[in-house]
């Protein structure tokens, strides 16, 4: 299937460039570590208080890292007019969107794994039974962030004040994802079963579908530059 192969080659290219240039990933990983410190200092040593805001802080960490990772995803295409090349390559442009999304999700997954691990270690969280549910929530939330983020990153890539405009456009749209993931994470960490947060999970799944479909349908419009 050519569509799949085209999407895969885009993802392959992005991940290869990332691995070789190490531009984004290293900075992101270090940024996550830094966030941990900043949160700790900002919130103080009080264990109780930390436990209460932990889910919010965790997702704040994810979102800030995602903003960095996603914001850069099309910057590489501006060199040597590669963007032009993407536009002129014959075939369905949504394959490019999917490939970019795949690469971004992979990147975000790496960062989130690190952030989560650091959180568990530093804040002494017992994941235990909550892990499968948490993994699902994190996965769904990340897809939501990535789907809209990839689209908006393409939209803001050529715009002045890209670094500011990208988060300004992305964050309001992501509020449902933020609310759902934080609330679900909160409940799961308190030991509640996945069934108790089923409505949040369904919302996330619905959001993901909507976002990815819009991305697939409108990406060619955005690529036209």
């Amino acid at each position: 299937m050519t569509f799949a192969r085209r999407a895969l080659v885009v993802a392959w290219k992005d991940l290869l460039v990332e691995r070789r240039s190490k531009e984004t990933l290293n900075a992101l990983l270090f940024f996550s570590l830094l966030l941990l410190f900043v949160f700790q200092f900002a919130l103080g040593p009080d264990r109780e208080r930390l436990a209460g805001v932990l889910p919010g802080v965790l997702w704040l960490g994810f979102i800030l890292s995602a903003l960095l990772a996603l914001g850069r995803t099309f910057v590489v295409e501006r060199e040597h007019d590669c963007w032009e090349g993407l536009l002129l390559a014959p075939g369905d442009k949504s394959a490019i969107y999917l490939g970019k999304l795949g690469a971004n999700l992979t990147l975000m997954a790496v960062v989130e794994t690190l952030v989560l691990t650091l959180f568990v270690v530093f804040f002494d969280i017992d994941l235990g039974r909550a892990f499968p549910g948490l993994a699902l929530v994190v996965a769904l939330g990340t897809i939501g962030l990535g789907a809209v983020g990839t689209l908006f990153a393409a939209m803001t890539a050529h715009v002045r004040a890209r670094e500011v405009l990208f988060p300004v456009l992305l964050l309001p749209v992501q509020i449902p994802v933020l609310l759902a993931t934080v609330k679900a994470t909160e409940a799961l960490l308190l030991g509640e079963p996945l069934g108790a947060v089923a409505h949040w999970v369904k919302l996330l799944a619905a959001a993901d579908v909507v976002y990815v479909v819009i991305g697939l349908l409108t990406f060619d419009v955005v690529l036209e530059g």
Partner: protein
Amino acid sequence: MTTDPVIRLSDVRKHFGAQTVLDRVSLDVGRGEALALLGGNGAGKTTLLKIVATVLRPTTGQVTVAGLDAVRQAEAVRAQIGFAGHGAWVYDDLTATENLKFWTTLAGRAASEAELTAALAAVELDRTGPARVRTFSAGMKRRLSLARLTLFRPAVLLLDEPFAGLDQRAKKWLEGHLESHKDRGGALLMVTHSFGRELGVADRIAILAGGRIALDTPRGNLDPDDLQRLYAAHSEDAA
């Protein structure tokens, strides 16, 4: 129909905000024909080329490539053209071979290792295949961009100063490649700055000045001096 031009611009205008870059441009390029587009800096040559390539849209006017409307059937047009602009379309962190592999796969064409190596060999980059493009000079990147073109057989080639930065051997190779393209019935629209032997491949010369086609003539027996005189006479930018 073999008599219809492969590339046709009719009354094309292009504005960027308040600035008019192209003002009622009409141009034809036929099968097996090569047109060299000359003009001063900022004359709009690249803009015109990009409009034919569907990278930009005309403000008004009609553009057809291989009988397809460049605005309404842009995707179909893209399948018919090979474009090499100022940017080389290379990813610095990928190797030369990987770059070619990316662009061919993205175009839905599965090129074998042998084909990729052959393409690199044609522009004498085969030994640098495994090297990262970041280490390449600007000229090498341009050659890589041309190597990419050889992997396809489009009906139309749109090239922006393709001979720039090439050494004699590479120029000779490119000439040969473009002649074969024409022999196969391909059309060529080439933007160029120079009057030298590069124009040898052109069947017709057009000069873009003041947003319009100031001259459109067969190259025929014009020698470089004639050309320079015509160019100076027609363009605002005294050569």
